[in-house]
């Protein structure tokens, strides 16, 4: 949604990151590494956003540092948009942090992972680990309130996930074929679990 709103996927990703990390300042190469984007394009988009007043740009030595502009009149609104869409992953990662040690892998799938979310989209989250769904609900309560979105969580113990993945369980197969945004763990961890 936000990508369409801002007219550029990269612009939306930059805003998403910078607006959800407003206390940090970054130079181009840092953002290039974080977002895995081309440095020339990142540099160009940052300059545009700074010229609009959404970011501050400060030259220090040979580096230009960019940061979300808290004095911008629409800062809070922009930040809210970023948290609810592009910044969603960060909010959920922070919520899962206290129980992340017992989660092998957790990721978003469905419309958010496909970048086809709308303002009404639920957040689909799958976790594999030694955690219960009541525990997940408790951990995610602040995120649910912050994001004002329904969060559909599916929790599998590792053994059940592996067995169902190997048996070709249709839901798991579909999820494994689709796009994912990792909150805990990585593709490697998921592949090991899926066998």
């Amino acid at each position, binding site marked *: 949604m936000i990508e369409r709103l801002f007219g550029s996927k990269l612009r939306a990703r930059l805003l998403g990151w910078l607006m959800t990390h407003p206390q940090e300042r970054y130079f181009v190469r840092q953002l290039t590494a974080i977002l895995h984007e081309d440095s020339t394009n990142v540099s160009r988009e940052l300059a545009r956003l700074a010229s609009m007043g959404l970011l501050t740009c400060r030259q220090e030595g040979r580096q230009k540092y960019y940061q979300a502009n808290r004095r911008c009149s629409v800062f809070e609104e922009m930040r809210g948009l970023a948290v609810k869409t592009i910044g969603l992953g960060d909010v959920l990662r922070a919520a899962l942090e206290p129980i992340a040690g017992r989660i092998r892998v957790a990721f978003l799938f469905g419309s958010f992972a496909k970048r086809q979310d709308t303002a009404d989209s639920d957040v689909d989250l799958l976790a594999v680990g030694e955690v219960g*769904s009541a525990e997940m*609900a*408790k951990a*995610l309560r602040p995120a649910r309130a912050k994001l004002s979105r*329904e969060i*559909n969580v*599916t929790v599998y113990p590792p053994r*059940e996930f592996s067995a169902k993945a190997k048996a070709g369980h*249709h*839901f798991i197969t579909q999820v494994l074929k689709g796009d994912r945004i990792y909150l805990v763990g990585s593709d490697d961890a998921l592949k090991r679990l899926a066998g």
Partner: protein
Amino acid sequence: MPLKDLLAEGRLRSHKTSIQEVADLLRVVDRDLADAGILRLSADRRFATAYNAALQLATIALHATGYRCAGAAHHWATFHVLSEIMGTQAQARADYLESCRTKRNMTDYDRAGAISNQEVDEILAEARAFRNDLLRWLTRHHPVLLSKENR
């Protein structure tokens, strides 16, 4: 949102329940708890059935307090006021059942197979514990609503 605000919005209305209504709803609960234990059913169906048992238990608490839901989002409203009705110790249960509400919507309307066996075991255990807690709560706060068979 407090209960009084839901009343003002028309999401809740005054309601006078009876021994018969509570007994009828408890029979729905017991049927669903038994059915959710049938291992031959899909995990999705067992989950949705156990969820309905929990929803009816929360509904009994709401009715006993003198209210019923009106209009849309009545599952949400029923769980939303649970801790205000039964005490703050019920907040974790309300949060959990609220998360189950979205899962049940997903499994009933959008997607088959997204419920794990562990999730079924968990909601069934929670619904059984809720039944025991609710009967204790009714005995303490609304004993006149309990029929002989439920005392």
